[in-house]
């Protein structure tokens, strides 16, 4: 299916939760959805016969200067098409439902987004820091991150 058709199918099902289609300059194009609806959208994308997005290729956090985003790249093995889903989040207390019940592959990638951006994935079966030590302060991949001077008394 073409990205425009996938967008239309989602819009028909979820209405206002589906915000826009970012097509130009985005490979693959992104369907922007609202944060609260992401779990429903994910289930729909996976279970709907024509869409059948059974494979989550990549889940990344992004820090656009004025807001955060979580970008999902999805792929369907039977239907051989791909799409991107993007969710925009406010800068303070960014949080959205976790999709690891739909795609277990999301777990480590959500932990990474939490670790490096501070995006909280509600309902995640295991949300802990993954790449940085448990007691690290701050979220490094944010654009306004200040490098700490000391860690446990060691100058870094």
């Amino acid at each position, binding site marked *: 299916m073409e990205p425009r058709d996938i967008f239309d199918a989602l819009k028909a099902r979820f209405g206002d939760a589906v915000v826009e289609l970012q097509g130009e300059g985005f*490979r693959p194009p992104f369907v922007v959805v609202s944060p609260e609806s992401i779990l429903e959208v994910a289930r729909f994308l996976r279970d709907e016969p024509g869409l059948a997005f*059974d494979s989550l290729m990549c889940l*990344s956090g992004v820090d656009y200067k004025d807001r955060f985003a979580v970008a999902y790249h999805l792929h369907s093995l039977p239907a051989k098409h791909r799409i991107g889903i993007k969710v925009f989040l406010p800068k303070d207390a960014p949080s959205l439902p976790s999709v690891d019940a739909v*795609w277990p592959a999301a777990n*480590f990638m959500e932990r990474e987004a939490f670790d490096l951006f501070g995006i909280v994935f509600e309902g995640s079966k295991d949300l802990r820091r993954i*790449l*940085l030590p448990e007691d690290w302060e701050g979220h490094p*991949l944010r654009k306004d991150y200040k490098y700490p001077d000391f860690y446990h008394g060691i100058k870094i």
Partner: protein
Amino acid sequence: MSAAESNARARAEALPTQEMTINMGPQHPSTHGVLRVILRTDGEVVSNARPDVGYLHRGLEKIGERVTYAQFMPFTDRLDYLAAMNCNCAWAWAVEKLANIEVPERAEYIRVIVCELNRISSHLIAFGSFTADMGAFTPFLYSIRERERVNDLFEDICGNRLTYNYARIGGVSGDLPPGFIEKTKEFLDYFEPKIDEYNELISYNKIFVNRLANVAVVSAADAVAYGLTGPSLRGSGVAFDLRRDEPYSVYPKLDFKVCVGTGERGTVGDCFDRYMVRINEMRESVKIVRQAIAQIPDGPVLAKVPRIFKPAAGEAYVRTECPRGETGIYVISDGTANPYRLKIRTGSFVSMNIFETVTKGLMIADIVAVIGSLDIILPEIDR
């Protein structure tokens, strides 16, 4: 009854005992890097194995935001240093997609040749270290010997044996040296019968098969849902290979088979299948390199790309088939010389999702088999 089931039954009927928490620490001979696994075991049987990664986190994605697109190339070498050519080319293809750069055909053929040679040498290490973990120390040294010859070829091309920094945005850094094609043919002729030798020596050895058959079976649906890619996915019977199903570069012109696990000694999706997929893929890579050498045209090897390279604003996600899975690079450009955000999704990182689930009820010796069969490498996981 499988070993896991009989273990579970024995545990249920036996005296209550205390569970032991063992640290398969960051320094361990068979964790393929600095991986820490926190094991909770009841004697030999593992009830929970939690991986703890991050010991090799170097902040590559943050570094990427501060350097230019061209300057990031050497960093991709350190992503999966056993398949550095593949990682270099993955970054090059991602940026070229983002900026719509046309790469000369000769450069694409050269990229495919070095990527497949690197796939051979990476699978040789996977094979060697896996058998060494299983206790057969000899095949490791044989695979190192073959790998030395591939390293010699790469040294001819770019001067380096491990971290090549060979691909460039728009092509490759230098043309093939004279005599390279002949030396490669010599290597391929020498190497192809060796694969059968290894199969005779170790692959079908009864002890080896018994260690791996029916251990950590991953069904096809689970493999896709948990994000396994590459040989681990194909070992579960899913015939999906990016080189054939989402072709890039000159792969559409090359003919090769997609190796899939067939459950030949156990169940489809067990450790043995994943291992055999890698052995068979080496054969296919030899085929690909032979075809590429025959088909390679003349021409330039680097497209004209401005020195201060500023792609138009936009986002692109490009994935390529690396030996350890698919390496997907999501790069966001805001029109400046540095990437705005780059995210590297590596096969090893996402493969770790399944680790905790698939190791329940196994024995400690099997944990080693699982780590080896998933063929993870820590720099890829931690970036």
